[in-house]
């Protein structure tokens, strides 16, 4: 009887691993294909595409596509722009949205329920529907800088950052997470005379590692993959991010090797960021009940 149970357990384990390996293969092979193709000349890349050689570093392997990609487009500028815009937006978003979430959950004030509902309602509005009004607004906003007062935010980093700092989803994530924190901690701190800011900074934030990681990853992905908005607001090459830069590689005759090299270069930071935060991400997803 015990042997049958052990056999069943072994079978279940083998099946589970087989399924997991299959899923891993499905997800990993496109990345392997991308990286391997980035080292191959176009003709070989196209020939290999129909067989297993596509996933192997075989044939005429070189860094030529990477060199050519740097010649075709200012790759370093695009990567810097994306990393800078994404990094600043993520940091500001975590600060602002966590503070908003804190205020919605712990501070008692009139209208917070209605405001939270309104904020959540913005989740159903796709960005595309507000892109043009936002563009018109951004083209007329004032700014005080080294040149004094100027009008219009186009062709700048701020136009790519400011509209995305606060969003309903991130606030919602923080609200959900904060609701599960023990209220006694907050009450005790209030009794001890701590200010709201002290509670936010010294009690709530140190307990919010998983949700900070989750919000950071989600915001990072959204920002790093931005295409439509930067396309609309950056006419100057010096401000363009990586996704707009990808278009530089789609000429009449597409140089697929260079496309793969460029994609490999811009994908690595995202993968690294995700791998760095994935444990916290998974923990937070499990605790907030947010799927997908």
């Amino acid at each position: 009887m015990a042997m049958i149970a052990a056999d069943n357990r072994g079978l279940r384990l083998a099946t589970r691993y087989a399924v997991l390996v299959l899923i891993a293969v499905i997800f990993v092979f496109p990345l392997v294909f991308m990286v391997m193709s980035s080292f191959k000349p176009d003709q070989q890349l196209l020939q290999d595409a129909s067989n297993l050689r596509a996933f192997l570093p075989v044939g005429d392997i070189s860094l030529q596509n990477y060199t050519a990609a740097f010649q075709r487009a200012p790759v370093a500028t695009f990567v810097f722009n994306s990393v800078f815009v994404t990094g600043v937006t993520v940091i500001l978003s975590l600060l602002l949205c966590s503070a908003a979430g804190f205020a919605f959950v712990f501070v008692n004030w009139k209208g917070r329920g209605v405001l939270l509902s309104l904020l959540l309602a913005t989740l159903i509005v796709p960005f595309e529907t507000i892109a043009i009004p936002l563009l018109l607004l951004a083209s007329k906003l004032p700014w005080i800088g080294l040149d004094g007062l100027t009008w219009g935010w186009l062709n700048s980093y701020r136009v790519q950052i400011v509209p995305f700092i606060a969003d309903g989803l991130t606030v919602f994530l923080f609200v959900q997470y904060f609701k599960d924190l023990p209220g006694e901690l907050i009450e005790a701190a209030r009794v001890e005379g701590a200010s709201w800011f002290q509670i936010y900074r010294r009690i709530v934030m140190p307990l919010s590692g998983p949700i900070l990681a989750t919000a950071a990853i989600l915001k990072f992905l959204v920002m790093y993959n931005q295409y439509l908005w930067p396309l609309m607001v950056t006419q100057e090459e010096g401000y363009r991010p990586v996704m707009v830069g990808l278009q530089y590689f789609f000429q009449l005759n597409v140089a697929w090797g260079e496309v793969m090299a460029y994609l490999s270069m811009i994908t690595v930071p995202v993968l690294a960021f995700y791998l760095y935060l994935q444990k916290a991400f998974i923990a937070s997803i499990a605790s907030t009940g947010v799927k997908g």
Partner: protein
Amino acid sequence: MKLFGLAASAAILGWASVAQAQETLTMWYHGAGNEVEQKIVNGLIADFNGSQTDWKVELQSFPQGAYNDSVVAGALAGNLPDILDVDGPIMPNWAWAGYLQPLKIDESKIATFLPGTKGIWNGQLYSIGLWDAAVALVTRQSTLDELGLRKPTVDQPWTKDEFMAALDAAKASGKWEFAFDPGMAWTGEWYPYAFSPFLQSFGGDIVDRTTYKTAEGALNGDAAMAFGAWWQGLFTGGYAQATQDPADRDGGFAAGKYAFSWNGNWAALGALSAFPDTVFLPAPDFGNGPKIGAASWQFGVSATSKNPAGAAAFIEFALQDKYLAAFSNGIGLIPATPSAAAMVDNYKAGGPLAVFVDYSARTALVRPVTPGYVVQAKVFEKALADIANGADVAATLDAATDEINADIEKNGGYGH
């Protein structure tokens, strides 16, 4: 010493006044990512800036795939440059939408330009191109010989029956995966550019060009139905694949997968390097003469330009044969004038691509010259993809006609 000081002051003042008088013209161009094209444009601008002291052109380049959206966004934000380039068939829409103003140049200078390079809408010139593009039926002389086919010419193109007989022979030989590669993987503008000439050769069109107020009869009349049935037959008959891998489109002909490929002059040198006996045949005549698409990228002046005279001066400067030839040598497109073509090895008489000049001059038809084209092109593309994938021809073309008519009506006839 005093004299030296005076001279220096005069020089500085003189330089300052020249610098002050020189107006800056901003220019947007779609060539980012194309190193060769970028170099030629920069050279042209440097030459213009050095040739006079009134204007200084400053370039901002965009990748082609993002260019149109960037211009539309720029127009909405009131941030258009003085000079911009525009894809020929889009020009009427941008003129109608108020992005462009009529181009005031000496029109005698473009008298010998290929017809497809002139962006004329509502009787006015809005844009002018330095080159055009053309499409041909690409195959190998050895294929023609092997299948026992005559080599067609513009004067004696293949008829529909001859073309289908050629495809039948290629299919029956079993030597190729598919007899014909129309280029189904190249979605977007390729469909109306490359395939609407087939429809026009049948006698139909995307829209009724006599009024531009309806597609009724043009896109769903008898000729269009015959075209639709023929088009669908290419796929149901196994001559071509309805869904194509982009890699096959780029490398399939060179890999020997297709006997005939419908492709542009920009891909011609690649085909020649794969097979030195490659030949570029004219479009088949489906009853109303052989037809190919026309109109490529052109220069125009934005409606908001404060210096239209300077912008026009730059465009006029760019029309010199040496620049037409330089662009052709660099990016492989057809020079706009015969005199410039004679300066280009590929396109001069006897050159390997000289036939494209002839095809462009004698068989090219611009896509419908209407602001509604941007919508009509997408409707046409979807209809052709659906028919290729087995949709009912009559129902699909009727639906496409209704969609185009509704759009024209919604936009008040687009000013026609």
